[in-house]
């Protein structure tokens, strides 16, 4: 089953004339349910733009994007926001926790936009923080944590609404190797245990081994890496 589908998607920046820059060129892509898709490429090749267009965060110049069977650029912004809130979780490259909120409040933040009552909200937030090893720091503020710990909280926040799709944009680029391995291990575990579809973009080719599928981006186009194989022991990538 296809979780995300892009057809003929293009994205250009600039005025559309000679100064326009094409970040995506006629991209066709299907991401199947439970894929752990790793998209690599050099800086400026269009990885983040691809992720943004696929999730409704940036408008494509051409083409169609379908998520969970919904053509996301044919619905209203409010409907798109609701779809993002219900089906997607985000892990960004930059620190994205709200500094004024506690870790628990940060994790529960997406529920503010879902307008759904969850009796077990706090319990779930605690479970998720436990899962990323920070269950004992519920009331702490983001600035009290290291970059790696903050990124773990972001992962917990991404899962609070039980999404079907997790988007990770360079989730470990600001981290040291050891912390990067911890974060990637959490993502791998989530993928394995929760049957999530994950799309991750990174410039770090060594992370390809964590995924089940690899795409290479070059100048706004995607190329499938047919040689990629899922690691037999994902915890110990080659």
């Amino acid at each position, binding site marked *: 089953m296809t979780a995300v589908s892009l057809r003929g998607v293009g994205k250009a920046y600039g005025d559309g004339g000679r100064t326009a820059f094409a970040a995506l060129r006629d991209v066709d892509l299907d991401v199947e349910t439970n894929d752990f898709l790793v998209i690599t490429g050099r800086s400026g090749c269009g990885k983040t733009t691809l992720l943004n267009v696929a*999730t409704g965060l*940036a408008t494509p110049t051409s083409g169609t994007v379908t998520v969970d069977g919904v053509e996301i650029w044919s619905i209203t*912004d*409010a409907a798109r*926001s609701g779809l993002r809130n219900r089906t997607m979780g985000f892990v960004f490259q*930059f620190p*994205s926790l709200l500094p004024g909120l506690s870790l628990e409040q940060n994790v529960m933040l997406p529920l503010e936009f*879902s307008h759904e009552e969850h009796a077990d909200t706090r319990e779930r937030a605690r479970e998720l923080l436990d899962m990323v090893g920070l269950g004992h720091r519920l009331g702490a503020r983001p600035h009290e944590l290291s970059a790696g710990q903050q990124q773990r909280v972001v992962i917990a926040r991404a899962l609070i609404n039980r999404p079907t799709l997790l988007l990770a944009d360079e989730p470990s680029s600001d981290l040291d190797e050891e912390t990067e391995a911890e974060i990637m291990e959490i993502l791998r575990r989530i993928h394995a245990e929760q049957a999530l579809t994950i799309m991750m973009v990174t410039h770090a080719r060594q992370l390809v081994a964590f995924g089940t599928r690899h795409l290479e981006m070059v100048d706004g186009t995607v190329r499938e890496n047919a040689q990629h194989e899922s690691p037999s022991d994902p915890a110990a990538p080659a």
Partner: protein
Amino acid sequence: MVLSTVIISRGGEESLRLARERLGADIVVVPRGSVTGVEGALLLGNATNTYMPRGVVESIAAVPGVAVASPQLYLTSMANSSCCSVSLMFMFAFDPVTDFTIEPWLKEKLGHDLSAGQAVGGADVFVPDGQDKIKLYGYDFDLVGNLEPTGTNLDQTLFMTFASANDMAEASRTKAKMALPILADTVSSVMVKAEPGADRNAIAKAITDAVPEAQAVPAAAMFGSYGSQISGVLRTLVVIVVLTVVLSLALMGLVFWMSVHERRRQIGVLRALGATQRFVLLAYMTEATLLALAGGLAGAVLASVAMYLFRDLLVSALGFPILSPSSASLFGLIVAGLLVALLVAAAAAFVPALRASRQEPAVSMRE
């Protein structure tokens, strides 16, 4: 700023209205060339040293169309009297036989006429602690009542009859360190009541023509210079307020724009997590509203306290009386001030907030 301006302008206009209402006369006759001095005495309680012979009262009463003519005397002020909560006190004498301006008003407030030895004080006049009378120039006065505040020196004025004033002057010669300088048979002004239907302007002209020492002014024309002064100050204040509001609008717009710009990444994150454009717009407008309420309330309190503390200084600097607003009126003004603050903040925040809400989340998150 807006609140202060409204308090000053409304206080000034209200003082003038009350003064005209209290005047009660159709025509005021004053020593020639001393209209401003008498206006100051009537409106502000300022001491005036211009007098005319008491004989003019009969001449004025004889002018056709004059129904009643009643003299008044404004006495030199006293400094540092122990009977007042103020450093200066003024005295105001009237003739209870002919008076039709003060006596009825006192009757209404006190329920009886003012007799010799009795006086009525302005709002700030009181009997000193440990005494049962006010002693002035060696003469004892029973303080039989106090008048409503006017925001002028009339609040520190003692009202008495001519007889009491003369008794006080007599007593001052033997009992006071300094004799009260009342010139014999002089008056400061004459209040005139016209016959019903008579042309007040014509009567005023006839009085001025008939009595060389005097100048008659129809009541409607009294305090004209103060009215012009208030209008002039009001115009200046309005210009300053408009400039302030425009500058505030620009400055707050800039501050909100910077605030939005600084938090654009947070906005992008919230949008990615599911926040709608409407949520972002409402969040910023709510923030602007709360800031406006807090700032407006602080400003209103500051303006009210400043007006309370510096009212005397303002009256002296502006040259016209400012009646302090009642609690209900002040509350209304504060609410109106808060509404203005809300409108300015909402106008300043709307464009940056709208822009932030409509920006693509990906653009918001970009460095």
